[in-house]
Each structure stands twice: as structure tokens, then as C-alpha cells.
């Protein structure tokens, strides 16, 4: 990657989050380059999910600044961040359990295409989104499950459905929180494949625990421990860093 010339899509400076005295995210400065896959790794409790919550405005930072495409978004509302094209997935799978897989994807298509407020129309109007929704389900290997209730899908498939729903918005900046957590190896391979295909024309920031996934995918890795940035660089640099080996692998294998 020609990192020197590509500019940052998402930047933070001094990002900090304190929960009643406990600092979960401590003075984190990140710079996510356009078109890159950037991984955020670190042991459990390092503050990765909290970081995501701050970036997507689900939490308000105690200090620091967030810039997205040059705009200060520190005080935006979460729905507005999503509307600007920064869309996240959740660590705990977030699907609409009482709706079919197809309806799950359609709900994401519905808002952008202006069919979410009409209460006087029949919901058969939503069928015009079916083709696009089915194509997205095919993409994540859920083609045969279009009419299955989301709650009845296996864990791995729920994760896949969540990604398909996120992709329905075609977000230029995709934030994935442990997309492969709890998946079988086969599912992981499919998601890794998908992420490789997805990177065309977009930037991906992902939290990941599975090191082999990160190694094969990411251009840049930020290692977080106890809310602080411990190291940053490509896989080779980071994986050889002695501090990373003790902090990350140490506690992970404890």
C-alpha cells in the first residue's frame, strides 16, 4: 500500500473514556488511512469495544477529538455518524431476531431508499428490495436462509447476517467488532474471503482476536492494552515487538 500518499479517513487525538474513575480508553490517537484494513487488537478488556463505541458515538468521550473525512464528529449523534457512512457491527451479534434474514437486510435498505415513514402503505412495497437483499445474503453464504427467522440461525450465521445487513448500507468506512468471534473455522474462512472482497472502495477498521485473521488481512495494526496504544505498525513489526509479546500473548495464554 502506498501509505505515504493516502490520507486518513478517521483520526482520533487524545481519545479518552473514563467510567467512574476507571479509564477504559486512555489518550488514544489513531489514524485510519483511506482504503486500508486497520486492525485493533489487544487482550480482553483492553478497551477495543469501548473505542468502537466512542468512534460511533454510542458513548461520549471524556476527552479527545474524533475527525472523520476532515470533519470534527466528536459531538455527533450515533445515527448521524452512520448516515455519514461510518457503520459498525457489534461484538455480540446484533440481528433482529423476530424478523427473517431477508427482512433483516431489507430494513437497512429501507431507510436510504426512503420507505421507512409511510405508515399508510402496505409492506408489500418492501418487496422491491428483495433482489438486492437476496444478493447480499448470497454474498455471505446465507442464500438458502432468506426466509429463516434470524433468531433461529446458528451463531456464525447470525454474524454473517449482521455483516450482510451492514453491507446493505454500502458504507465507505466499515467498523467490524470481532467479526469472526465464535465462528467455526469454515465460517471464519468465508468471512475472511468476504472482507478481502469488501475492501474494494472502502476502509475497514476491525477489532479482532484471531491473530491469523489479522495477519492475512490488515495493512496496519494497533495494539491496545489497558486502554493505551502499546504498539502500531504492520504485522511483522507488531508481532516482533517484545512489549506486545508479553502484554498481548502473555495475558491471552495465561
Amino acid at each position, binding site marked *: 500500500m502506498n501509505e505515504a500518499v493516502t490520507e486518513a479517513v478517521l483520526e482520533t487525538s487524545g481519545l479518552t473514556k473514563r467510567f467512574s474513575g476507571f479509564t477504559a480508553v486512555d489518550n488514544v490517537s489513531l489514524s485510519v488511512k483511506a482504503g486500508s484494513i486497520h486492525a485493533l487488537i489487544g487482550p480482553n478488556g483492553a478497551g477495543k469495544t469501548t473505542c468502537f463505541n466512542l468512534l460511533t458515538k454510542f458513548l461520549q468521550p471524556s476527552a479527545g477529538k474524533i475527525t472523520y473525512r476532515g470533519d470534527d464528529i466528536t459531538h455527533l449523534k450515533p445515527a448521524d455518524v452512520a448516515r455519514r457512512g461510518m457503520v459498525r457491527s457489534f461484538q455480540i451479534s446484533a440481528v433482529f431476531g423476530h424478523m427473517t434474514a431477508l427482512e433483516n437486510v431489507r430494513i437497512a435498505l*429501507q431507510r436510504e431508499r426512503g420507505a421507512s*415513514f409511510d405508515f399508510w402503505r402496505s*409492506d408489500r412495497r418492501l418487496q422491491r428490495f428483495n433482489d438486492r437483499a437476496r444478493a447480499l445474503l448470497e454474498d455471505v453464504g446465507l442464500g438458502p436462509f432468506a426466509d429463516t427467522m434470524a433468531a433461529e440461525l446458528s451463531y456464525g450465521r447470525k454474524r454473517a447476517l449482521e455483516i450482510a445487513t451492514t453491507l446493505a448500507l454500502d458504507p465507505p468506512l466499515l467498523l467490524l467488532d470481532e467479526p469472526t468471534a465464535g465462528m467455526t473455522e469454515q465460517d471464519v474462512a468465508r468471512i475472511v474471503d468476504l472482507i478481502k472482497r469488501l475492501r474494494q472502495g472502502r476502509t475497514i477498521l476491525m477489532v479482532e482476536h484471531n491473530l491469523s485473521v489479522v495477519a492475512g488481512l490488515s495493512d496496519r495494526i494497533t495494539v491496545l492494552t489497558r486502554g493505551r496504544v502499546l504498539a502500531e505498525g504492520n504485522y511483522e513489526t507488531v508481532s516482533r515487538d517484545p512489549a506486545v509479546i508479553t502484554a498481548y500473548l502473555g495475558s491471552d495464554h495465561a
Partner: protein
Amino acid sequence: MFGFSRAQLISLVILIAVVIAAPFFVYPIVAMQVMCYALFALGTNLLMGSVGLLSLGQAAYFGLGGYTAGYLVQSLGLTPEIGIVAGGLAGGLLGAVFGWLAIRRQDIYFAMITLALAQIVYFGAVQLTGFTGGENGIQGIPRSALFGLFPLANDHAIYALVAVVFLIGVVFVHRVIHSPFGQVVRAVRDNEPRMVSLGYRPASYKRIMFILAAVLAGIAGGLKAMVMGIQTLSDVGIATSGLVVLMVLLGGIGTIFGPIVGALIVIAMQYYLAPFGAWVIVIQGGIFVICVLVFRRGIVGELAYRLKSPL
């Protein structure tokens, strides 16, 4: 048809048959009252069942609808359809303001805010005697001719009007639930943070539902004022707010036909238990407790569960 499931279509046919036959078997006045309260409960269920918000102040919109219709028809001599439509609009406007204030709160705080706001309306109704008649209410609202053409003085004539408005209300509520908007509301209910992460602003959808519920309450209140010929403080009081919640719970929260069955049972009890005087409330309370213990889903909810089909 119209997106109704098979079981719902059968229920709708039964409902229409019952509505047509009822005035020949029971006092038309009672049947009309049931339909007015059923319409009120249908709206309340949009909030309770679809959004999952318990409002303890729905009587504010019901009462305002009644006062508006009563005032326009009695004092200004306007025709009943204008009164009823104005009742719905007044309810909707009040709902827009109160919804804007209440929707930011969750759960019990939401219930408390709606209750407090409704109490303000109640005290307003006591004070604004020029509009509401205060303690006396509005008495002797004339049943003037519909559109100035069709006399409503006869019970069967006004019955036809109430039946038509009520059945349109049933179809309307079904449509709202099965609309693109209804789909969004269902998804918000299912997983609100996920909807936010997809760029939705859930509060907007809840507010619209709040307004729709208030409009239906206002129309129901206006219709009831026309039917009864009087409009009193009790329609805007907390007991009425409680009554409509009871109807929804008894019939089956989140079902189409539940609120109707709930309204039928509650109003029928009030009539047939009237000889017991003050005991009515105790008996009603007892029945409510038993229902909650035996059918937690409500009567229609339980039936739908057994039939494995939405009703």
C-alpha cells in the same frame, strides 16, 4: 387479502357480522360504546404493543377529542363529522406536543410523564369551564345531521356511522402495523441500538406512533360524545386512562383483535355489574388479576398462541 392472515380474515368477517347483528340483540348504545372504547384501545395498543411503551395518560387525547367535538357541535352548531374529525386533530396535536416531551424517557419514566401531562389536561378541563363546562361537562350535545344531510337522531342511524368509523379504524391499525413504517417500528422494538447503528433515529418513529394513537383516541372520544350526547370530566380522568390499558392487557397486547375483545368485556362488565355499585371496581380488579395469572398473553393473545397465527 390486504395483508391479513387467514385467521385474521376470518376474525374480521366474524367481527363485521357481530357489528351488523349487535344492535338487534343488545342496546345499540352499549354496542356503540364498546366500539368507541375499542377504537381508543386499538390506538393505545399501537403504543403498548408495537412500540412497547406504557402510557398512563391516554384519556387526555380521548377526553380532548370528546370536548372538541362536543363544543363544536353544541356551541358552534357544526355538523358531527366536523366535530369528530376535529376531535381527532385536537388529539393528534396534543399528542404531537406531549409525545415530543415524553418519548425521550424510557419505561417507568415514560409512564410517569404521560400520567403527569394527562393530569395537567384534567385540571385544565376542570378550569376551562367555557370550553368544557367544568364539573357539569357538556350536556345535551345534539345529534345533528351528518354532513347536514343524514339525521342521526335515530339510534340505528348513528350506529351505522360508529360501525363504519370503527371498522375503518380496525383496517387502518392493521395497515399501520403491516406497513414499511410498521416494519421499522418492529425492528426498533427488536434491537434499538442496532437500528441506531444503521442510521435510524428511533425517536421519530415512536413519536409518529404516539401521534397516531392520540388521533385514534381523539376520534374515539369525539364519536363517543356524539353517541352519548354528553361529555364529562370522567372521560379525561386517570380512571379512563387505566381502563383502556386494562382493555388492551385483557384482550391481548400486540394483537389486532385483542383490544376489541378487551373493550367488549370491560364495557359489558360495567353494564351488567352496575347493580353491584362501587363493587364494580373490585370485581373488575379481581377479573383482571385472574386474567393476568391465567392468560398472560390476554384472551386473544392466548388464542393466537394456541392457533400459532397472529390475530
